[in-house]
């Protein structure tokens, strides 16, 4: 397999809150290859966004800090990069779009001004050329009357339009990696589909690798090649979209998929995973999902489960698939994890 364009190895990002250290990201490893779309799924507070901000080295510090791990982009280790080196990468080689299109643009500057700024930070072009290129980009992301919109202010545009502007901005320097942090969460469904289309085209035409952070399994099914499921700061399962959606292994992933409304079932009430996410803490022992898991047994409370790997690249962090631990073998019928 070729070298991944972006790889995160054993990332630990901690936050200091009320004199307590919270491991928001606790040993996450992710790989992203050229032209690939990888989804990171998990509920609010599981560390998806912090992972993406860590890659960009934009974790607000204080209170956040990357304490351990390696982020490699095209062979360079970003954890050791200086602020100046990071600036050259941000927006240029790795771009990011955020969840909140309503507040992600500076309200006091025109769309054009902000696009031109993004272009001129990394490219030596005249203001006029940058403006023409901005209009071109706006056209490309499907904004009607682009030549007028370029002189308008963010508050004059709808949420969907603003997200398109964000995408145009992210595309402006032809990045190799696009990190999209819940890009469609704040938008209504029809707009969602358009924004996803736009990202898919970008991926297909320019071979841009996309790290798509979302809690929406529907979006994952539509967009991604591979999925990483996170829970409470840790990766609990990883595999191809097909595998994960057809045959989830981890009880959490199973729960997530069961809680999707299904047109074929006759059940009146939608399933939901009991309990809520617990706040990750440093001195915690045992599987973090154990309190909410219907299959939990003694080992789950006493030891931290390891990430078990299958040859195909499928991974799961659960004792149910550990031959030594799982005497009960509740759901496991394949023992091929090592």
């Amino acid at each position, binding site marked *: 397999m070729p070298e991944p364009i972006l790889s995160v190895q054993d990332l630990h990002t901690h936050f200091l809150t009320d004199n307590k250290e919270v491991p928001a990201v606790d040993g996450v490893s992710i790989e992203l290859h050229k032209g690939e779309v990888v989804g990171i799924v998990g509920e609010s507070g599981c560390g998806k966004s912090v992972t993406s901000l860590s890659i960009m080295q*934009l974790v607000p510090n204080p209170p956040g800090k990357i304490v351990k791990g390696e982020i490699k982009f095209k062979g360079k280790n970003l954890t050791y990069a200086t602020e100046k080196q990071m600036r050259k990468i941000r927006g240029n080689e790795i771009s990011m779009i955020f969840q909140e299109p309503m507040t*992600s643009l500076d309200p006091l500057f025109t769309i054009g001004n902000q696009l031109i*700024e993004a272009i001129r930070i990394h490219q030596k072009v005249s203001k006029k050329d940058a403006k023409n290129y901005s209009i071109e980009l706006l056209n490309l992301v499907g904004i009607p009357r682009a030549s007028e919109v370029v002189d308008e202010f963010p508050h004059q545009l709808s949420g969907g339009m603003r997200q398109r502007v964000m995408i145009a901005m992210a595309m402006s320097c032809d990045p190799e990696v696009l990190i999209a942090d819940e890009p469609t969460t704040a938008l209504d469904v029809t707009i969602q589909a358009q924004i996803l289309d736009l990202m898919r085209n970008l991926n297909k035409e320019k071979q841009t690798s996309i790290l798509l952070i979302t809690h929406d399994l529907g979006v994952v099914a539509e967009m991604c090649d591979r999925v990483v499921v996170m829970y409470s700061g840790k990766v609990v399962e990883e595999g191809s979209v097909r595998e994960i959606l057809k045959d989830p292994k981890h009880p959490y992933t199973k729960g997530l998929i069961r809680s999707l409304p299904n047109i074929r079932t006759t059940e009146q009430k939608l399933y939901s995973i009991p309990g809520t996410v617990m706040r990750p803490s440093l001195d915690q022992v045992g599987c973090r999902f154990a309190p909410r898991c219907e299959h939990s047994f003694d080992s789950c409370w006493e030891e931290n489960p390891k990430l078990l790997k299958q040859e195909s690249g499928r991974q799961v962090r659960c004792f149910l698939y550990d031959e030594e631990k799982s005497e009960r073998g509740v759901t496991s019928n394949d023992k091929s994890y090592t």
Partner: protein
Amino acid sequence: MLAYTSRRLLMLVPVLFGMTVITFSIIHLIPGNPAQTILGETATEEAISNLEETMGLNRNYFIQYTAYVGDLLQGDLGTSLRTKASITTEIGPRLAATIELTFFAMIFAVFIGINAGIISAWKQNSWFDFLAMVFALVGVSMPVFWLALMEQWLFAQELGWLPAYGRQESRDPIDPITHFYVIDSILHMDMKQLITSLKHLVLPSIALGTIPMAIIARMTRSSMLEVMKSDYVRTIKAKGSGQFLVIYKHALKNSIIPVLTVIGLQVGVLLGGAILTETIFSWPGIGRYVYEAINYRDYPVIQSGILVIAFLFVIINLIVDLLYAFIDPRIKY
């Protein structure tokens, strides 16, 4: 923008009307007979009725008010009871003195206040931040008269660097054109006078500007910190822009509106409330003019002084409001 400006200008009309009603009423709100109060207890019946006649106090309120506003519209602020001179001509140079002092005090306050606030927010919790905020706290709590006296003692008396009193050397007075001495000396192309005028401005400007500076610094800092946490600042950083662009282009513009409000209010306060500073530094400004008028119960001067200060206050706030709309395209009243 044009519609906003004209609407905002129209809103001035009721405000100005209210102002004139209040200043007009001052004289009639004096308990008892105003003429008696002005002239004192020993005044004769005749003197009282004479004064009532000249001031028109014996006519009905409506006619008196119309005459008052009519005079104001013609630029006539009335006559001083003490000097018998036209208040309009008396107040002009004093107003210029106060505006000049306020201007330099605010330049000092705004320049240092905003920059200190920005650096404090940028380097939050650093030693600079800590020192600047302690200094700002001291600045806010320090009484103006005490600071003024300390300045005079240190810089005028002990070190002899700067003059302690007045606006100019009495031996070598400036020939006034606009009564703004800095401008006048430039108009006269007189370098020596310019330096003298500026030297005279230093101590009172610092005394007057310290409190606003401290308030502006604290306001800028908190407003900047708020903006620095916002989503759009994160976007700008994600674009790969440097700190300078983030702070001086985006964060500053976004955090300046509350600071502008404070600056506007402070300018108003300085224009009207500089009596202490003007007295200590013998600055012939409007504050001292009104203060002296109060001592002499010179009601027309008090009335006009209040009116002029209030008018300036309203104008400053108008400018601030227009600036809001200029800075923030979302503001539409």
